[in-house]
């Protein structure tokens, strides 16, 4: 028999997880939409964001810690500066180059970022500053509940998503950003500087990706190297949403988050699952939840290569 409270519980935490992924996924789509770069270093950028708060907010590497809120701010700002520098020095050289060479550059970038974190902290998880860890549970209707840290992270993620959407839909600059992505020349004759647009896209992308990494860390008590895996998981989300669609990235992330949570709970090691209407019973190994989004990724690429909301002109990957 299905336990409804548990099902709702798990689905809710899946929605929440999806909202956290959404920041990293929207960062990916934004860069792809505006610059055409498929950034396979998203997971590592999120991870560096997560560890940035540890670097600045605890006295593990630096001689003294700064307040937690300042550590978050410094991390995001430094991330943006780094992103702009990378765009100027690296990615600008690859404008108009084959997609593959840019992909390889982002893969290399990911490895470098990963190397830096491993060098500083090894593979160990690092606790977050006191101010960013909340214990306790929040009770929700129907007898379900959710961890406070998780709820706060999800709430912040949703606020960031809403602000970003409002920016795109309601401001001149946001409209211009979308306009440049759809027709560069027609935007240029309105006085838009494409270089500035690209810089803005990187700024926003790195900022929300870093925030996503930080929130993923706070929701689980600290920075861990597993945040890096977000990179491939959100890839499933954006492929489902259609690489160049920012709302698509959000919806794709929610689907992937729910799928992963349901999978992790119901398909844990040793769980026997009966295929409906038959006597067939399947046993799944541990960690199957995290594989589900990737199975979805494969199915989407085969069945609907442009995703749910993507533009058809996108190169098939």
């Amino acid at each position, binding site marked *: 028999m299905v336990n409804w409270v548990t099902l709702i519980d798990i689905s809710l935490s899946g929605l929440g997880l999806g909202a956290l992924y959404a920041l990293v996924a929207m960062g990916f789509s934004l860069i792809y939409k505006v610059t055409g770069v498929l950034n396979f270093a998203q997971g590592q950028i999120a991870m560096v964001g997560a560890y940035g708060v540890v670097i600045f907010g605890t006295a593990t590497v630096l001689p003294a810690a700064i307040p937690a809120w300042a550590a978050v701010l410094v991390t995001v700002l430094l991330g943006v500066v780094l992103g702009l520098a990378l765009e100027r020095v690296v990615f600008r050289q690859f404008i108009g180059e084959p997609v593959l060479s840019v992909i390889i550059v982002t893969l290399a970038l990911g490895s470098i970022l990963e190397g830096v974190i491993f060098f500083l902290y090894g593979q160990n998880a690092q606790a977050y500053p006191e101010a960013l860890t909340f214990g306790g549970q929040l009770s929700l209707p129907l007898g379900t509940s959710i961890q406070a840290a998780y709820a706060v992270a999800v709430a912040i993620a949703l606020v960031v998503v809403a602000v970003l959407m409002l920016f795109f839909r309601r401001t001149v600059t946001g409209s211009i950003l*979308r306009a440049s992505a759809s027709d560069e020349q027609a935007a*240029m004759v309105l006085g838009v500087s494409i270089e500035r647009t690209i810089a803005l896209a990187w700024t926003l992308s790195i900022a929300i990706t870093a925030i996503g990494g930080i929130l993923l860390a706070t929701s689980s008590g600290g920075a861990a190297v597993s945040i890096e895996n977000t990179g491939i998981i959100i890839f499933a989300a954006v492929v489902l949403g259609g690489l160049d669609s920012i709302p698509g990235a959000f919806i794709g992330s929610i689907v992937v988050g729910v799928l992963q949570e349901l999978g992790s709970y119901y398909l844990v090691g040793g769980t026997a699952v009966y295929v409906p209407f038959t006597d067939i019973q399947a046993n799944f190994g541990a960690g199957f939840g995290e594989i589900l989004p990737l199975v979805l990724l494969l199915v989407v690429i085969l069945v609907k290569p442009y995703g749910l909301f993507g533009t058809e002109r996108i190169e098939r990957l």
Partner: protein
Amino acid sequence: MATNEQATATAVDDGDRPVVELDNVEIVYDRHFLAVQGVSLSASEGDIVALLGPNGAGKSTILKMISGIGRSERGEVTRGRVFLRGEDVTNDGANEMVERGITHILEGRRVFEDLTVEENLRCGLYRQGRRFQFDEDDYQIAFEYFPQLEDIMDLKAGYASGGQQQMLVIARALIHRPNLLLLDEPSLGLAPKLVRDIFETLVEINEREDITMLIADQNAKRTLEIADYGYVMENGQIELHDPADVLVEREEIKEFYLGTSSEDSRYTDIRHYKIRKRWT
């Protein structure tokens, strides 16, 4: 072939400096492809100037080098000069030209397809101090000349009809508040009735907003009806030019009409249009 002397003649008459002036201009794409050669033309304050000629004549190339957008297609003025109110602006970039009050309406109704009509109009506000905020008043100039747009503000521009899209790109340019408007093929692919409406609106805009216009179009008849002066191009050169009312009466142009004004050849290139060298 046109010479400097011919081109400057129109401008000097009223004593004013022409808004835009090309002096014996040669334009090359990709360092090798010669697209325009020895072109001199000018447009005086408040004029509507027609740039006519068949597909491939070099009309768009000239507009693109005036607005600076041609640079993004590896186009370059390799000989001659371009002046804006007497200032040498040869090979300046699109950003600089926009700052100087030039708005270019590109060929092919380039609306931002996944943006709504309102968001498209909003993009026209960009120049005015990189604005973050805006209000409905900013759109008044658009509604004044294209009231139909007010009813489709929430429609995705990609779903608008061809006529609506043409109105939208003109309206978006108006919101941008230019003093020189470059229009590339505003009539292309539109029904004759729509073309008449749009051209009438252009005249109104020209008169009331004091915007000088350079219109490149294959529809010679319609364009000369609203123009003050006309240039006819072929193979990258200017073959004929005269005040519009004089040009309309010239034999070579009457021949040219046959190619463009008849309904069924509107979409095709003009095959039989050929201005004989002896006329120039």
